[in-house]
């Protein structure tokens, strides 16, 4: 049931991704927008280097079709991990056999 929504949910964003969401700009973009990079923001923006930033597994390959492909794969990968983690957590918490 939910699996039906998944492909649509992943393919469409890849084509529609136009610019960053409001409030999710990188330090660089912000500099262009406001003219300076807020100091605290600068300090914190390097605090964590995520393994798969912006859902793009391969940062170098920038063609639209390839980016959509990576987005799709990241999406499936992420959804699967989320499912598994939630399953584990739920099993640890819920013990009753109602």
């Amino acid at each position: 049931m939910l699996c039906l929504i998944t492909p649509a949910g992943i393919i469409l964003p890849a084509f529609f991704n136009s610019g960053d969401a409001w409030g999710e700009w990188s330090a660089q973009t912000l500099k262009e927008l406001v003219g300076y990079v807020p100091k605290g923001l600068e300090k914190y923006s390097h605090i964590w280097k995520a393994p798969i930033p912006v859902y793009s597994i391969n940062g170098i390959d920038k063609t639209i079709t390839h980016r959509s492909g990576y987005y799709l794969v990241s999406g499936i990968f992420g959804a699967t991990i989320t499912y598994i983690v939630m399953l584990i957590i739920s099993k640890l918490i819920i013990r009753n056999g109602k």
Partner: protein
Amino acid sequence: MHIPDGYLSPQTYIPLFGVFVSVAAVAVRKVKKEVSVRVIPYLGMAAAFSFIIMMFNLPIPGGTTGHAVGSAIIAIIFGPWAAMLAVSVALIIQALIFGDGGITALGANCFNMAVFMPFTAYFIFKLLSNQTAGRARMSFAAFIAGYLSLVLAAIVTAFEFGIQPLIASTSDGRALYCPYDLSIAVPAMALEHMLLFGIVEGIITTIILNYFLKTEPDLIYALRKKTKND
């Protein structure tokens, strides 16, 4: 709506972390007591669903994007406590593995989308509907619950952004964190979500509720018969 690192000052993100952790602790207790084993695979799917929905960035005139969350329907079907855990898992994985949402901001993001939103949605749904309501009324309640909870969550997020210049600036007036104040943050976030994503969330909530009403009505937390123990 995911807040990245660097946009919130410690005086904002630390308390929000505190709130999130406290609510999570209560949620674990409540879920342990109230949720049955057979729901576990559904909860897994709910978390994955929320993850996917949040990747669904839609464009808005002006060149920015945003997203629905799925918290509303998860709260209606599984209860707000379980929803809190499911959406948090999705958000945590998004932040840690995909850099979608900051680590310092994780408490804030989880509060906005996994605490505030599901509880608001649940409350609104219960306000507008009950076990005896017909399909139409339940669908309406579901839509409103989804729509309003998302819009309000967006406004709460905007508020967190918008107060930053007020509470954390250098002596020469430069903001230390998010440089946009309330007069910019609130309209931008509110309008985006009122005109588009709220509707998406509302529609998703209604469609999925109807699916569950048809296939597994007994599962729905919000429509459980009240027992003495509730």
